[in-house]
């Protein structure tokens, strides 16, 4: 039921999701089987007097504790690696590495407010604070196969930018700056949600991320259209 992953690095998160849930399912099924076996085998009608000792085979159940420790360690190693990859490396270093690898990136500033997202673009020159900056409400347009760096803050209360398809989520906090970055690899439109209770209309604080081919994006940013439906019809998107 996971939404399609369109982030170049999203498989790292998906791997941790699979390990953490898969390991839990295995240990859970084994535990349930043992408990059900015991209550069936040691029911009063079949076993009218309790045994004086636990059957030696069942004593081996304590190995579940060791299985748990191994599971924990595997989970911690993969999870910590993925976390370090996304959030411990400084943003500047990630940008520099991307450039060294010949990759390209875009930067967009994000402000969360009750109950809409504002996406601020540097415009064609790629620099914030110049006259060609422009803002979009609830629409985030990004080029395919570019790194996308979102520099986020909030204008009132806490919000949390959540884009399930790129497996990214981070709170926006008034008075602070937080980051989300990812590299979308598939064209299309994807939902953006707010994941931190921000007031009465929290559930309706939604945005759309539109991922375009590089050429279309370059065309769009020269002459930006602000409305998501117009963008979609103009650039002939398939859902």
């Amino acid at each position, binding site marked *: 039921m996971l939404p399609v992953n369109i982030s170049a690095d999203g498989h790292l998160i998906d791997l941790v999701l699979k390990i953490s849930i898969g390991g839990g399912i295995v240990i859970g099924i084994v*535990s349930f089987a043992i408990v059900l076996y015991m*209550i069936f085998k040691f029911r009063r009608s079949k076993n009218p007097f309790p045994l*004086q000792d636990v059957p030696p085979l069942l004593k081996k159940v304590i190995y579940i504790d060791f299985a748990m420790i191994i599971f924990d360690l595997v989970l911690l190693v993969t999870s910590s690696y993925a976390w370090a990859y996304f959030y411990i490396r400084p943003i500047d270093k990630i940008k520099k590495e991307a450039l060294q690898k010949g990759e390209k990136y875009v930067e967009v500033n994000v402000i969360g407010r009750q109950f809409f997202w504002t996406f601020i673009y540097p415009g064609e020159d790629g620099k914030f604070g110049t006259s060609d900056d422009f803002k979009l409400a609830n629409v985030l347009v990004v080029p395919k196969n570019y790194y996308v760096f979102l520099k986020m803050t909030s204008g009132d209360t806490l919000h949390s930018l959540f884009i399930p398809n790129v497996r990214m989520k981070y709170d926006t906090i008034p008075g602070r700056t937080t980051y989300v970055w990812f590299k979308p690899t598939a064209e299309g439109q994807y939902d953006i949600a707010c994941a931190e209770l921000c007031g009465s209309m929290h559930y309706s604080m939604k945005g759309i991320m539109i991922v375009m081919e590089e050429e279309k994006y370059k065309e769009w940013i020269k002459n930006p259209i602000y409305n998501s439906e117009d963008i979609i019809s103009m650039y002939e998107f398939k859902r």
Partner: protein
Amino acid sequence: MGGSNMSGEHHREESFIKRYIFSTDHKVIGKQYLITGIVMAIFGGVLALFFRINLANPGFLSHEQYNAFVTLHGAIMFFWVAMPILLGGFGNVLIPLMIGARDMAFPTLNMMSYWTFFLSAVILILSMFVPGGAFSGGWTVYPPLSANPEVLIGAKWGANLFLLALAFEFASMLMGGVNFVTTVLTMRVRGLTFMRLPIFIWMEVIASLVFLFSVAPLIAGALMLLLDINLGTHFFRVEAGKAGDPILWQHLFWFFGHPEVYVILFPALGILAEVFTTYARRPIFSYKTFVYANIVAAILSFLVWAHHQFVAGINTISALGFSITTVLISVPFSMSLVVLGLTLAGGSIRFTPAFLFGLFAFLMFIIGGLTGLPLGAVASDIYFHDTYFVVAHFHYTVFTIAVLSSLAGIYHWFPKMFGRRINYTFGKWHAILTLVFYNGFAFPAFFLGLAGHPRRYYSALELGYLQKYQWIHELMTISTVLLLATQVVFIFVFFYSIFAGEKETEPNPWESTTLEWLAPSPPPHLNWGNFAPLVERGPYEYAKNGKDIDFIPQGRLVKLKGETAEK
């Protein structure tokens, strides 16, 4: 055993008010807590019913009502249901009986504790009817939303009364906690060493200590929050040029809030230990492992709080540290559960209602524990944080604690508390139906979480990718209605059984070993009359020779010479 002699010896003429309302008798106070907790559970359940109907059928409530009901439901189930039932209720009734004392160490403080709690419940309910409406900023009360009436209606008087109610509740539980710890430390009967204490007593003491040590930072935080709301200070509020820190509240809240989960978990595990040993007729698999593992878990519980804040703006390296402690806390808990599970091995299991509830609670704890790992592992929490996966996980832990384990305890100790029985057949059906409907609402939430459904959403129909899962919400709502209907029948049967259930004259109907089963049912004021219990062995002497001697009580009653119980 002479049960009838003991009860009649010290008649004291007391008014109805002194005996049943402003009573200092630990059993009466315990029952007051238990019944208040059950009444608040009805209230919290009805709130859940309303917002679940809204999720199946958006528009049933207003947006503010929806958020307020979700907020109150969470707070009520934690602080006005789980705590009063598991600590105030079972703790008060059972601690003196299980350690052979005649009452708590501070009976008057105990009475004040209950009435402070009662006042807190009244204030909480009043908070729904103040200008601006009930507080709707979530039970975690995150600022700046909770601190700024400009961004949240109800962040003024609703929030003030909500915080005031919490303050009284904490004051009440502090009085109770001090009382529990002091009573167990100083009033154990002769022969009852620490390592002979019933597991339930250990768990109540550990829970009380965790509560006492964790609550102070939250009280400091709540005071700052009240100043922010009412005097416009900027501890947590952020406005141009006046930068408070909203994250600070999250640290103060969760430094208390996470240990708080274990405050209610430990007594629930204690109930399971008593129930499993009694009905499986086996001693606990490893007493020491169980006690030490839970002490380790209690200490670790102070080091995991920021796992609620992984993507909330905390230092990303410290997030890694909190992830490690969080994942590792699964080790002592898995040890506890293995010990509980192996207590069934080789037993002769009696499938009473109490056992069924205990068994179901045990199985659901396994699910609840294992689904904590994807949330504790920091990378998977990026995706799952604040989604329905969290909702599912904490219903598999907290519902299991507050409802399944409490019901196991209610069915187990009901004859002792009230001298009557709850109908057996009813109890079994109650357990089975509760399990089925509970899973019907809680399990589908895992799938919503996988689909990326954020929690605290008024409707799933707004966001495109969630629309196709509306049927899951409908299924969950139907299950909730059925679950609540089952509990309504139970509550009727419960009160009927208190007054008109089948009389239970045998003091020890389940053939259990711990001291409370030596007292008459219900125990008289001061519990033991002209007798005193004497403890001679450990608490779980079952399966003695595999045939005729099935169990040996932990102690026996000795007649007092020349003294009276009144002393």
